[in-house]
């Protein structure tokens, strides 16, 4: 009995709840991200259908509103033949979607999801800086993908992607760092602890939240904001030559990027695990806080999804103009607002 108990403890403590594994693979990592992608895509289709005079996914399971439709779609992507055109550069063509997904999840390794020391994946002193830095890695592989595809539409899409990323990642980084200016700390645990009193940074500095929100919306290429793979002139942009599971990875990649940013927004601006105070113990100290953060992030994503039914697509130069002419000054203003609030001791 004791040996079995020990094996159980080892599996639970040292494997499942070993912070790097837990955060990369379970919550909020790969498995949670997959479930979130399934839910959010379903919600997006359903919300759009509500606005658009129709039912959305329904027929596969009418009682639960067709919620398992995405499982069917996923199966279809997984079983579809992967056609690799002769003209592509095969190795980067195959590897870049996979690396993109892995790198997209990497920022989750850097963020602490609880205030208890034993459950930090990495020392959290500079976690905000590291997470933001890691989040800028994966878009590079979209550019690589478009180059490896050797297709005119893909190249145009890749160029647009690089333009958009340069502009909007900068806004996202600056927006997140304005939180550091407010709290004088890069430590996400500190940032969340300050928000414990109900003074969420998103409420204190709504300009920064708005700027980050728009930046995430644009840089992760959700439906009406998918300037790099805008359907009506670029077919599918960087993903034009992809088929089957590789294409599915690309489609999921956008949602995973958005999910990671939503986790960061939830932690930095929306109080993280705020109303709840972690208590030592695996469930109470690690599982529940991570769940609270995930739910907050999910709500952020749902709001982003709703916007697809209201807005259309910006032109690439307009999107860049908005970024460089409006949002970057706005973000700098938010940074200044944060500094001022810190100086006058509002936080």
């Amino acid at each position: 009995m004791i040996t079995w108990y020990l094996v159980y403890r080892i599996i639970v403590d040292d494997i499942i709840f070993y912070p790097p594994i837990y955060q990369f693979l379970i919550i909020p990592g790969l498995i949670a991200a997959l479930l979130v992608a399934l839910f959010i895509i379903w919600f997006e289709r359903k919300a759009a259908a509500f606005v658009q005079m129709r039912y959305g996914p329904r027929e596969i399971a009418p009682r639960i509103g067709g919620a398992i439709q995405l499982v069917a779609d996923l199966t279809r992507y997984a079983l579809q033949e992967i056609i690799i055109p002769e003209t592509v550069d095969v190795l980067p063509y195959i590897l870049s979607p996979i690396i993109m997904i892995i790198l997209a999840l990497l920022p989750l390794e850097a963020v602490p999801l609880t205030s208890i020391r034993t459950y930090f994946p990495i020392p959290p002193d500079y976690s905000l800086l590291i997470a933001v830095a890691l989040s800028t890695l994966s878009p590079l592989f979209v550019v690589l993908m478009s180059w490896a595809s050797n297709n005119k539409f893909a190249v145009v899409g890749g160029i647009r992607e690089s333009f958009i990323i340069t502009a909007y990642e900068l806004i996202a980084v600056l927006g997140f760092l304005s939180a550091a200016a407010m709290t004088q700390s890069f430590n996400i645990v500190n940032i969340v602890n300050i928000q414990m009193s109900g003074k969420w940074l998103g409420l204190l500095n709504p300009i920064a939240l708005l700027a980050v929100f728009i930046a995430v919306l644009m840089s992760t290429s959700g439906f009406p904001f998918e300037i790099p793979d805008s359907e009506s002139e670029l077919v599918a942009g960087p993903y034009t030559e992809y088929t089957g599971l590789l294409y599915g990875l690309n489609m999921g990649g956008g949602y995973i990027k958005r999910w990671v940013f939503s986790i960061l927004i939830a932690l930095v601006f929306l109080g993280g695990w705020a109303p709840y105070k972690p208590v030592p113990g695996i469930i109470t100290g690690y599982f529940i806080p991570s769940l609270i953060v995930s739910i907050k992030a999910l709500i952020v994503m749902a709001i982003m999804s709703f916007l697809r039914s209201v807005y259309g697509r910006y032109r690439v130069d307009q999107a860049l103009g908005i970024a460089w002419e409006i949002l970057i000054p706005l973000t700098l203003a938010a940074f200044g607002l944060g500094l001022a609030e810190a100086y006058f001791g509002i936080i």
Partner: protein
Amino acid sequence: MESSTSGSVVPHLPGMEVSELSKNTYEVYIGPAHPGSGHMRIIVEVDGDIMVRVDPDIGFVHRTMEKLAEGRDWIKNIPLFERMAILDACNITLPYVEAVEKLLGTEPPERARYLRTLLCEINRIASHLYGMGIFGVFLGHSTLYMWAFGDREVFIDLAEQMSGARLTHSYPVFGGVRRDIPDDFPEGARKATRYMRNRLNEYAKIFLNNPNIRSRLENVGVMSKNLATELGIVGPNLRASGVRYDVRLNEPYEAYGELEFEIPVFEEGDSLARAWARVEEIRQSLNIIDKVVDWLEKHPRENFMHEKFWKTAPKLYKDVYTGQIDYAGKYRVKLMPLFASLKVPPGKAFARVEAGRGEMVYYVESDGKDVPYRVRVVSPSFRNVIAFKYLMPGHRLMDLPAIYGSFDYFPPEWDR
């Protein structure tokens, strides 16, 4: 042949057009199998993100309509020509019917003229909504797409009540129309028009006044008055450039001369003006529908077929018309058997109407046989497509769908 031997010069083969590209540009082929092209190809030469040369390449859905018409009896051409643009079926076939009526020397009775006007306006609304829906999805605005197609269903339903078919009505025939409106039609039509007026305000809120969409359309693809007249653009696109030209205004046909309505003319000539022109036209069409329905209600349901075809009708035909036969429906005009082998007196006739996308022209020539000698069709989309070549260069590649969609170009209509 000498040129082919030298290395730098491109060989010239017969039937092949070769043009050298400058160094910094490359060609993008948008279509014919492309999500944003329709049944056509647009060859775009791009310098960075700016379009340098745009070449609309048409003919992918050519069906030899004009030649087919020469081998068919006169009446059989009506369902054939509908296939050019089934979403605008009555407007597309009406000028053919009018031209043949001119050859036959018949004039449709007054009620038939009003009924034709009614279906033409219903079709115009349905056609504009279709165009706006496609325009919406070109700009990534899926809500407008679904809304426009959903609301189009209202008018397709109206058309179905009138004619018995959702799209291919085959409604006008020589000398009149095939059916009268059912008894409960005026009530439904009034409700539908009231509903659509409210919806147009909502369209404006979510699409046309949405800052996102406005910035895509404003000052994009500006067509000046001069350019529009030089290129021979027709329809709402022409009126969006400030030219006061509409067949309903310049040469009123059917009941348009007796109805009071406005023809919206916009001055800007950009994509936004073209979109607004369609919205305002829908609004005017709703007014026309209301007026025509009032007129139809006031006036008795007398014959709506020309007496030439109706006076010899046996009693059964009148029974069908008044609904005496239970399985046969009501208010239907029976066609006389002579329609099947109608011989049209020799001559040439020309007729035009304002279809949803612009001026639709038919030239019909008869040599006295039971098939036409020649039918020439000039469709509005054919006259609009040339504008792409002159409007798009200088814009960014992402403006291509914004300009393409604003023209409401419909490939099967040109390709005939």
